[in-house]
């Protein structure tokens, strides 16, 4: 248990929260399911915790082709929402593959996207980690690195992003709205996650005081009939992904008209498999096409000493996810 203290502020208005959020030492609290363990382990020591969970930021609305989810919507409420279930099953699959019932009842959409890596070198304050302590080095690169990245790593950091939901959202080309005291901006989900540098590895591209307020998807319901989230993990439930794949297809007249593939557990961000996607376009959803997409998915993979097993695992997971998504009606 950390013995560091902090002040608690329950924000009454978004503008109040955003103004306070810009101050040094401030941290936003939504569900708290990541912040509290980090604080207890002395991995973070905010001076002021700004509770945004009571702000009216949790609405889920579908309007025309757009789905909008407020950042503090609880994961279980999103997964149980009738319109999300009917038109965006991939989002529900990603959520229900995450954490436990207790955690999903509290954890929020925005917090899920901003949860910090589960790399054990990050989570142990006694070990070297550029993400936690810029310039201290990366213990994982030459240490126990079974869990580490295949893509997008640097000499300074090989940690994966742990969110399942982010992988599903990346496949659906989700965009996020980020608010601050000076206004708001919109960015693609992929732009939220910077690649690591030589001695630093920031978790997100958010600037001090910025808050995710909305997640938006346009026209993603077109994938509702052919979408799946496949998660490979060390135990069947309540465990982070070793490798995961979100697959979404639009099949018209017996051919794949559009394909979206994103992989989790293999990169610092949800890793879009664009070559695999391109190879599927115009093809019939056959084993041959899926095998080719699987082979392309692993091009450019750069394994470390302990994680080369993830390469065939990713290839096979892509194939299996496509079999499932392609076989739906």
């Amino acid at each position, binding site marked *: 248990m950390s013995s560091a203290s902090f*002040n608690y502020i329950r924000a009454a208005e978004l503008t109040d929260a955003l103004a306070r959020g810009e101050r040094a030492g401030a941290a936003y609290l939504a569900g*708290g399911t990541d912040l*509290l363990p980090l604080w*207890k382990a*002395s991995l973070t*020591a905010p*001076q002021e915790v700004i509770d945004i969970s009571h702000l009216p930021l949790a609405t889920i609305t579908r309007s025309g082709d757009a789905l909008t989810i407020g950042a503090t919507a609880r994961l279980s409420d999103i997964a149980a929402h009738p319109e999300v279930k009917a038109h965006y099953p991939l989002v529900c699959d990603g959520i229900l593959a995450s954490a436990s*019932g*207790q955690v999903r009842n509290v954890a929020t959409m925005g917090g899920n996207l901003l949860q910090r890596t589960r790399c054990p070198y990050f989570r142990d304050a006694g070990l070297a980690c550029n993400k936690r302590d810029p310039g201290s080095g990366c213990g994982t690169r030459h240490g126990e690195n079974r869990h580490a990245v295949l893509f997008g790593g640097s000499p300074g950091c090989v940690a994966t992003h742990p969110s399942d939901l982010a992988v599903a959202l990346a496949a659906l080309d989700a965009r996020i709205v980020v608010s601050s005291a000076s206004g708001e901006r919109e960015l693609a989900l992929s732009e939220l996650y910077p690649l690591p540098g030589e001695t630093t590895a920031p978790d997100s591209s958010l600037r001090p005081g910025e808050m995710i307020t909305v997640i938006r998807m346009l026209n993603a319901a077109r994938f509702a009939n052919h979408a799946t989230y496949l998660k490979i993990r060390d135990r069947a439930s309540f465990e982070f992904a070793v490798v995961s794949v979100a697959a979404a297809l639009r099949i018209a007249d017996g051919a794949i008209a559009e394909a979206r593939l994103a992989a989790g557990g293999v990169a610092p961000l949800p890793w879009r498999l664009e070559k695999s996607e391109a190879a599927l376009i115009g093809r019939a959803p056959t084993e041959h096409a899926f095998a080719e997409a699987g082979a392309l998915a692993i091009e450019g993979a750069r394994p470390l000493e302990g994680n080369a097993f993830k390469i065939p695992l990713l290839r096979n997971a892509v194939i299996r996810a496509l079999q499932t998504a392609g076989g739906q009606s």
Partner: protein
Amino acid sequence: MPSSFALACHNRGRTFQCHGDVHHMTQSLNANIPKQSIALSIKINGTRYEREIAPTATLLDVIRDELGLTGTKKGCDMGGCGACTVLVTGRRIASCLALAASFGGADVTTIEGIGTADRLHPLQDAFIRHDALQCGYCTPGQILSAIALLAEGPLSIDDIREGMSGNLCRCGAHANIVAAIAEVGGL
């Protein structure tokens, strides 16, 4: 919290390497934060409680240490084991991951609000008959988690196994726990 390890600790973006007594160091770093006290008003098992609490207190610590309701257990204190499960307006949560201040005004149910020795809740009765516990430490959390799970909707045996993955039983009574829940769920 004395420690023999070298630890990196953080405050306002600065990093400090230190050996030894972390408690002392973090106190001095936070000496400029005035001690805040939060007026908490919370309903637990139908009773309204008013307490002054620390801003850092978890709901679990308030329930156990401030209110003396020790049926809710502290296991891992990291959200992994489910021993601290309570219901907030009927939804199960891990009270060790809940900042108490954020739950001011909430309506909480703990195991003390479930059944009595004379009139057990059907799940308590089923747990006894199915031998769904040995040491019993995880049982309050298992019972509350199962109550909420059964209220979440129709279930299969696989749904129960998946849905109870947030509650660990170190004695390994999981098979009997699933059987007890299945019986009460009408499976």
